[in-house]
């Protein structure tokens, strides 16, 4: 018996190729016909992978043929995007995938839900057996352990999401919060969209060019504010995003001080992503005002990315331990000589323990 994984992902294939091999309603039946005794088909927007246990390994071309959506297969070109992993490497690949180590955004957790759904579907169709069952159950355990024992899933790695994280720590719930954008640049738009995705619904845009303010406000379902009135808006808003091309500072402690007195104890989060900066750094010294410029946001994002990288080694160690344990447990049932010698047990597929029988 062979345990293997054949597939492609964002690492090896462009989106057009991934779309072409995304699988279809007959894919699983075709793979079973070609000898896959146990089978889990994982398809997401970033990857298509077939995990299988079979008497003999399938050819990559056979698997590609089963996954192909329309058109003829051109093996020389398209098969280059596929990778294959066998036995321990297959287990390692599955554990890396469930833990988010192989994801486009390292550490993301959505993939775990997607693998769980793929497993549930395969189980419901009777495509799983003792080997893939154990592989999947252990994969889910590994993902949980990696998440809790390392910080790989924590913290944002883009300027927009760092701003959202900070806003949530300053205000708690972002629903009902008011945001004013000064200037209509690309980064401010991204930040605004990130805030909007977390529930901020009152969006205001102010720009020297009224037309650009109107356009951005319309695109984000907000309102445009005349540039001459932006300072008055600071009485009401919670978050100010500044990104104008002005060479002079637009906001100073002297300008904001009378307004802050009217705001009582409501905090003000100021995101200055303009270069040169639009807001005087001294504003951060005022109680209740939190000022972040593009450098400080970027440095937090970089720190988080670095932290995730540092956690990579720890996560890989956890995975390596689980691969070894998994192989100890399952290798003999696949006829693996090394595991048979070490365990001294017969090459009969084991019964599942009660804990393993439980679906995740």
């Amino acid at each position, binding site marked *: 018996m062979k345990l293997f994984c054949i597939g492609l992902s964002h690492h090896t294939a462009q989106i057009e190729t991934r779309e072409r091999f995304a699988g279809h309603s007959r894919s699983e039946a075709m793979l079973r016909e070609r000898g896959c005794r146990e089978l889990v088909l994982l398809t997401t927007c970033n990857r298509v992978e077939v995990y299988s246990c079979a008497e003999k390994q399938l050819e990559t071309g056979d698997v590609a043929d089963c996954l192909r959506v329309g058109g003829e297969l051109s093996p020389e070109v398209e098969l280059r995007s596929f990778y294959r992993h066998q036995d321990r490497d297959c287990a390692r690949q599955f554990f890396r995938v469930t833990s988010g180590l192989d994801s486009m955004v390292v550490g993301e957790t959505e993939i775990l839900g997607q693998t769980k759904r793929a497993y549930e579907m395969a189980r419901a169709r009777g495509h799983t057996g003792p080997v893939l069952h154990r592989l999947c159950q252990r994969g889910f355990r590994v993902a949980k352990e990696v998440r*809790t*024992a390392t910080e790989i899933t924590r913290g944002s790695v883009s300027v927009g999401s760092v701003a959202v994280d900070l806003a949530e*720590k300053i205000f*708690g719930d972002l629903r009902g919060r008011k945001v004013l954008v000064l200037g209509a640049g690309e980064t401010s738009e991204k930040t605004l969209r990130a805030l909007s995705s977390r529930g901020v619904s009152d969006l205001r845009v102010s720009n020297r060019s009224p037309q650009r303010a109107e356009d951005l406000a319309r695109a984000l379902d907000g309102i445009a504010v005349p540039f001459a009135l932006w300072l008055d808006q600071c009485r009401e808003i919670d978050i100010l995003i500044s990104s104008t091309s002005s060479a002079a500072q637009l906001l100073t402690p002297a300008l904001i001080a009378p307004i802050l007195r009217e705001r009582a104890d409501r905090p003000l989060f100021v995101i200055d992503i303009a270069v040169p900066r639009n807001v005087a750094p001294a504003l951060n010294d005022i*109680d*209740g005002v939190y000022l972040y410029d593009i450098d400080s946001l970027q440095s937090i994002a970089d720190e988080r990315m670095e932290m995730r990288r540092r956690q990579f080694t720890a996560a890989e160690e956890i995975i390596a331990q689980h691969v070894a344990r998994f192989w100890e447990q399952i290798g003999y049932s696949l006829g693996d000589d090394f595991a048979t010698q070490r365990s001294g047990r017969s090459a009969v597929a084991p019964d599942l323990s009660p804990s393993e029988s439980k679906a995740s």
Partner: protein
Amino acid sequence: MTVDRHLLILSTIFFFAAVVRSVIALRARVFRHSRFNFVMIALGFAVQTMFLSVRGHALGRCPITNLFEVIVFLAWSIALIYMLVGPAYRLSLMGVFTAPLVLLLQLFALLAPVDTPHAIRVMPNPWLEFHASISIIAYGVFALACVAGAMYLVQERQLKTHELRSIFYHLPPLPTLFSAMTRLLWLGFALYTAGLISGFFTGEPVPWKKVVLAFAIWILYGAILQGRYLRSFTPRRIAALCVGAFAAALSLLWSIEFVAHHA
């Protein structure tokens, strides 16, 4: 060594374990949510309760007859309020800040020569016991307000300095901490007021110095709440005042005991 002292040592060990775990996590700069702290505090609390029960049975009254017992009763109140408030406000991280406070109090109780038995055994007075116990529980609530204040200051400082440590992602948002802090202040103030009023019904002679000190604490917390109500204090100032007021109240509590013993 007596059974009650053994129990107190065991309870202190549980709180020490919680503190050690937190220190290790902080030093590793990888902070994780874990039930360990809560379980250790819960075990510490259970053993504290046994200590108070053993001591109470031996005395035939509420075990708050000397500074040693008052401190342990206060530590017990803090652990109790933490277990009630922590999960309710989803402030599980409060344990990281609560355990060291309880540990310090109990270490002081164990090491300082404050366990002096009363020479004259007085008859239990229900009003006096109510007054003393409710006042100490109020202190426990103020202690938790102080803990919430400390958490607020830590989180606020990280936001101001832009130096976000691992703990930043585990600490609750500022409004959650502020809301917990102000509610604890109100609860503590209400309990303390009840304790203060009941003090006049004990039928015992009250030293005027004790009354003055007790009212000083009441005015201190009243002023903080007034500042909050009128919004004349910023949340950060209220958090700092919560920490400062508790430190002052704790030293005044000691003074009250001192005055009571030397009056």
